[in-house]
């Protein structure tokens, strides 16, 4: 029983560690959805591009790691800005399905772009200082420092986001746009700028998540964004897509689910992805608005 208890405590920390990363990616998803009602399927690939930017900023431009990470976050924000401007803005008034298909197309484009430019061979992301992987002992559980950093960063960014949304003018405009774009525009707000800001923020979050992810699983490759992106999407749906706190709760819930399923039923470990999808289907069937029900579509 003693062994079982230790394993359980260790698994709780394992869950927090994985869930924090899912939460961070899910926040970017949910922001864009909340404002544009667009499921940005390219989000996982923006996450991938962010890690490549960090990798090359440090290995090719010899920046110190903190500057490299900062540059990567800024460039990824710029990438999000360009994607919105080139791919999504021309379709803003088109049927929603067109934007959705464009998002999937953008996802394929970014993956192929990465294969051509960065190469299809996985690269080792050993560009961060070693203290990030230091181990902290709590009882008999061993937790990498990175786990605490991930959780800390997730909540820090959540606070920043909350401050932007509720304490600044642009945040007010964002919330207004999420309700009604034409009316906001009539009030004199510059809709284009605000939507761009949303994409920049969401993409920058993806870059932060990408860098933390790559420090935990130090392998960078063009398709690395696919699975985490999909999982984060599920996390966002569980929490209630469009809701920031929902994304965070959903991320941690999914992390717990995945780790605990394996912890309690080791023989099912090879199929753990299945459980994430089963939860997605169940949520969509029984509570499509997720845990934090904030949007209910009204038909006029």
């Amino acid at each position, binding site marked *: 029983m003693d*062994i*079982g208890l*230790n*394993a359980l405590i*260790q*698994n709780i920390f*394992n869950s927090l*560690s*994985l869930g924090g990363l899912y939460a961070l990616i899910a926040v970017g998803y949910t922001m864009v959805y909340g404002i544009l009602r667009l499921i940005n399927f390219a989000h996982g690939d923006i996450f991938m591009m962010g890690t490549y930017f960090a990798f090359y900023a440090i290995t090719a431009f010899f920046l110190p790691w903190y500057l490299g990470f900062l540059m990567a976050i800024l460039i990824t924000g710029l990438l999000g800005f360009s994607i919105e401007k080139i791919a999504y803005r021309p379709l803003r008034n088109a049927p929603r399905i067109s934007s959705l298909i464009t998002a999937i197309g953008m996802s394929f484009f970014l993956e192929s772009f990465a*294969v051509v430019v960065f*190469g*299809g*061979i*996985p690269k*080792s992301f*050993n560009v961060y200082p070693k203290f990030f*992987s230091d*181990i902290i002992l709590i009882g008999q559980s*061993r937790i*990498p420092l990175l786990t605490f950093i991930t959780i800390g960063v997730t909540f820090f960014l959540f606070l920043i986001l909350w401050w932007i949304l509720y304490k600044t003018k642009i945040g007010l405009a964002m919330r207004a746009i999420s309700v009604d774009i034409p009316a906001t525009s009539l009030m004199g707000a510059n809709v284009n700028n605000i939507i761009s800001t949303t994409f920049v923020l969401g993409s920058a979050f993806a870059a932060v998540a990408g860098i933390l992810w790559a420090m*935990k*699983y*130090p*392998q960078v*490759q*063009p*398709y690395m964004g696919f*699975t985490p992106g999909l999982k984060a999407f599920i996390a966002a749906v569980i929490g209630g897509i469009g809701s920031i706190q929902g994304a965070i709760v959903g991320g941690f819930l999914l992390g717990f689910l*995945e*780790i*605990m*399923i*394996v*912890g309690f039923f*080791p*023989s*099912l*470990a*090879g*199929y*753990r*992805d299945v459980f994430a999808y089963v939860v997605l289907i169940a949520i969509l069937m029984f509570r499509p608005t997720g845990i934090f029900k904030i949007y209910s579509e009204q038909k006029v």
Partner: protein
Amino acid sequence: MKKVLILTGIIAMLLASFAIADDVVKIGVALPMTGNISSFGQMVWQGVELANEMFPTVLGKKVELVLGDTRSDKTEAANVISRLINLNNVVGILGEVASSNTMAGAPIAEKYHIPLLSPASTNPLVTQGKTYTSRVCFIDPFQGHVAAVFAIKNLKAKSAAVFTDVAQDYSVGLSNFFIKDFTAAGGVVYKEYYQSGDQDFSAQLTDALSHNPDVIYISGYYPEIALMAKQARQLGYKGPFLAGDGAEAPELVQIAGSAVNGLYYTSHFNAEHPVTKIGQEFVAKFEEKYHTSPSALAALGFDDYLVMLNAIERAGSTDPVKINEAIRSTKNFEGVTGYITIGSDGNAVKSAVINEVVNGQFTYVTTINP
């Protein structure tokens, strides 16, 4: 008049292209050049290219290699093999590396009667019941046996946590063969599972380590082995790892760093111990060309090409069916990884080497004969 001229021109060009086509022997190469296990494809290709440079002709004709990228994917492997046969009209195909990918492409090669010669797919099912699918490497019942014996005799292990990649036939098979021989010798195993592409193994490792295993046996491929080794060390595991031939790639060390020190793996070849004369020549030529020492997969790629070439030579024709018969009657062919004899079941019988990662280097430990 003009039309007739153009038409004549086109016909002349077509005839010319046929004439050129007649002067070369086209061999297809289906390898995972990008994606999860791209390092395998790159290494095999190095060996194939070197072999092609050293032996560029067969039956007095130039050999033309047509490379197709399977993107480390089963569906894409089948597409590539189909494309090589139907579009490029190759007389034989070298590839794939991963057993699952070779198995996905094999039915197509069987259908069109084109010999498919894998350099490194070790799962027994790859050639089972097949006529046109063969390989130049040993198979997993032997590899699993070697690992089990090594774990018990050399590592003095009484218990093992066995990690299986459920998405890879190679891993499922190899784990089973290891478990069979390890438990037959009185060992205890704790089974754990994962899937190609997984990055987080903390839950499985937490479960495995709660049993305090003497050794962790991972039968999958290097990308997951690297991440798993790193996470196992973070969770406090200090014992040895044991793996199959899917472990050897530069990325294993680049990604896992010092975590894989103390990882032993069964393999086909070690550059420190070439067993044949051509093996020594291969190591020298390889180091001259690539400025690094050759991996087991490069050696297998080299042998794969040579066995195919030798078969075409003995068949005395470029008829794929005759080439296939010649491949399956290869006897004591001197290759880099040993003397290769391919039976009518399409499998080669060879000795295995065990290597250890010491300070990031793949170091020779011992050779085990069948």
